[in-house]
């Protein structure tokens, strides 16, 4: 046996206390759903994890009513300091149950345990801690004195960072004094349901947060409910567009965090070794299921061959397999539907004439898997250079000058994020200034912090999450000229 064939080191699932079936979390308790229940499976084994309730239109209405009641009777009457206490309590409970949440997340989503353990769950706690601190300081958020909460927030989140996206939505909403009805994605409801138990443990007043599960029609019923004041959605541009249309003129405040096709720009004076790591982290982190993934590598032509060569060497060391193994780098694709889409777009890439290279790795018999893949000789007009693949697939393009790099980076309907790799600080500032993207990372990629705002330009959506800016999405400005 060679040293590199690391012996299995799986994180135990014994820490989980899963129920056979989960109801809807409405008004502080679990209750039956009236839609047809569905099953959530583990994408790495296709094994059933639990039955999940499906919220009908009546259930959605009940959840919104509970949120309205909690808003009017309890939550809007609490002081900021008291709301903060609940948020701090939730943050601490997330930390206490961190391992359990990480295991649940990797089981249900397919992401490697090292990511759920070291990235997702710690950030979830950080988000609640951060906004807990804001709850009694809203006067200083830059929105005028005593900015008012909005009311009931309807939130719909995706499957790529199930619990983290929940935290991004719930923490600022509650800190600002709103109550919430949130719908996790159909394929990844598990961590949100464990989170509901945490809310019970934290003794959060009933109805302040309601968690309803279901598919697209549940989400649609939620965002279109007449009694919600705020809609926050993270997901595909396609659905975001529908929501923008259906909420137009309704008076609902809307934030959308949608797709991306981020350019990761590598200049010839980049710290090459770290740039390779950054490229890997940019597109293969979370199997590429990241809206801000660096899926378009723009590399200066004079270092193209070297970068691609080194990248292939590095990719050959990535370990694909059991998400619960602590040494796994690449986990499972979240669903068969997503796997089909990744395959389809990759096949199109090949037929359009790009060169496909796939890292050699053993694909498990069961589950949904896609080996890390690079396309070289990609032209800007190819579909794999323009459309979001949302998988571990990197398209490599070249540029000759900084101006061309900027032009190519901006030549996309999206504008969520971008990366710049160079040893020259002045070049970082000059290029970042010209990129039309909400987040620009310099000599790093996919780094998140609750104090930093996140959001997109153009078809990547509008509104910001995180930081002081993230509060504005959940507050009515009271400043001069504000609508009273």
């Amino acid at each position, binding site marked *: 046996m060679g040293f590199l064939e690391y012996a*299995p080191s799986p994180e135990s699932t014994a820490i989980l206390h899963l129920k056979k079936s989960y109801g809807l979390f409405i008004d502080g308790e679990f209750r039956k759903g009236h839609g047809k229940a569905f099953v959530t499976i583990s994408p790495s084994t296709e094994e059933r994890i639990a039955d999940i309730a499906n919220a009908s239109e009546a259930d959605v209405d009940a959840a919104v009513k509970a949120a309205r009641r909690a808003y009017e009777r309890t939550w809007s009457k609490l002081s900021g300091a008291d709301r903060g206490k609940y948020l701090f309590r939730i943050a601490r409970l997330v930390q206490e149950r961190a391992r359990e949440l990480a295991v649940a997340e990797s089981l249900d989503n397919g992401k490697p345990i090292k990511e759920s353990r070291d990235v997702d769950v710690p950030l979830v706690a950080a988000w609640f801690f951060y906004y807990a601190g804001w709850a009694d300081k809203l006067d200083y958020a830059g929105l005028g004195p005593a900015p008012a909460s909005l009311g009931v927030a309807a939130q719909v989140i995706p499957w790529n960072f199930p619990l983290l996206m929940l935290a991004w939505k719930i923490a600022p909403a509650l800190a600002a004094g709103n109550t919430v009805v949130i719908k996790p994605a159909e394929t990844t409801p598990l961590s949100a349901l464990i989170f509901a138990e945490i809310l019970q443990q934290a003794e959060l007043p009933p109805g302040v947060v309601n968690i309803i599960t279901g598919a697209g029609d549940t989400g649609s019923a939620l965002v279109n409910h007449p009694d919600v004041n705020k809609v926050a959605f993270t997901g595909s541009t396609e659905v975001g567009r529908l929501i923008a249309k259906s909420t137009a003129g309704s008076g609902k405040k809307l934030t959308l965090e949608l797709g991306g096709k981020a350019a990761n720009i590598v200049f010839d004076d*980049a710290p090459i*070794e770290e740039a390779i790591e950054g490229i890997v982290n940019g597109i293969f982190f979370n199997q590429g299921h990241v809206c801000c993934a660096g899926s378009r590598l723009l590399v200066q032509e004079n270092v193209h061959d070297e970068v691609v060569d080194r990248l292939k060497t590095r990719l050959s060391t990535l370990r694909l397999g059991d998400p619960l193994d602590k040494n796994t780098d690449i986990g499972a694709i979240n669903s068969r539907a997503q796997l089909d889409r990744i395959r389809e777009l990759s096949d199109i890439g090949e037929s359009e004439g790009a060169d496909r290279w796939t890292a050699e790795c053993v694909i498990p018999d069961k589950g949904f898997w896609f080996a890390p893949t690079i396309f070289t000789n990609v032209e800007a007009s190819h579909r794999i250079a323009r459309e979001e693949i949302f998988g571990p697939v990197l398209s490599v393009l070249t540029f000759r000058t900084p101006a061309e790099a900027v032009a190519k980076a901006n030549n996309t309907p999206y504008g969520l994020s971008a990366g710049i790799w160079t040893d020259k600080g002045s070049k970082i500032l000059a290029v970042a200034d010209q990129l039309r993207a909400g987040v620009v990372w310099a000599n790093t990629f996919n780094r998140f912090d609750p104090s930093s705002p996140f959001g997109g330009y153009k078809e990547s959506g509008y509104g910001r999450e995180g930081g002081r800016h993230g509060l504005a999405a959940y507050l009515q400005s009271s400043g001069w000229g504000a609508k009273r």
Partner: protein
Amino acid sequence: MNATEHAAAHTALAPAERALDLIGSDLTETTLRLHLEGLSGVDAAGLEQRAAGLATRSIKTTSKALALDTIIRLIDLTTLEGADTPGKVHSLVAKAMNPDATDATVPRVAAVCVYGDMVPYAVEALGAAGTESQRHEGIQVAAVATAFPSGRASLAVKLADTSEAVAAGADEIDMVIDRGAFLSGRYGLVFEQIVAVKEACRRPDGSYAHLKVILETGELATYDNVRRASWLAILAGADFIKTSTGKVSPAATLPVTLLMLEVVRDWHRLTGERIGVKPAGGIRSSKDAIRYLVTVAETVGEEWLKPELFRFGASSLLNDVLLQRQKLTTGRYSGADYVTMD
């Protein structure tokens, strides 16, 4: 630059084969400088992040057993104290040959590492344990030389220090570079000294003692310097590049070792030639040492995990590995009194 300095910058440097192959026949201070300064920069945050990522690998059960034995085989068991005596060196050698008195399946360490004047005692102790040929298949004698650890002596003294150790039977020489010269930009001087020490490693029969070049990364301070010094040492003829003397803090760190492994990997890509790496100082626990093994295997490849290409310079590491090894065998932790001090 005055006329003398100008002339010096264009005077040909000692014709080390690797440097001639890579930089060309016009090998001068100037061309060497251009080459070293043309190397890609290192992003400190990124390097440290990668090292931290490698450190999270979880090495369990059979992999751990393999790792522990590999670590023992890669250790340069070291004593470098002013208080060293022939007696101390004798017991070091005994420990090197038979690390765990209770378990004959424990492999031997790679080498013992001592000061130059202690070489005869180490050779003698090893010789007493077997014939000359057995000795050379087994444990090597490494000597620190060139006015270790500071390197602040004339070239003549450094060369004498080296050739004396070689003559006394040292199989390996651990030299230090002139950090003062390096930091003041006199790369040519550092280069020429390494070339000269390498020549001093030559034995009468034409063979050479293996040369490990200590960069003393704690004094070079920046990762960019470490990358340049690593290239410089390799160009001048190093068989191994070594992080530290162990007398300066910080000594070996995982990011610095990762960086040196990257250089060695790049050299191999470029020339097909394999250079060794030796982190030294500060690696005391099995857990820490396993992180180094992971870093080697995932950066240059598993083939580097052999004494010809990777060493740990350490003194207390061995006993921690032995305790861990006992735990794997018996299922119980024993204690410091169940392994011999030296």
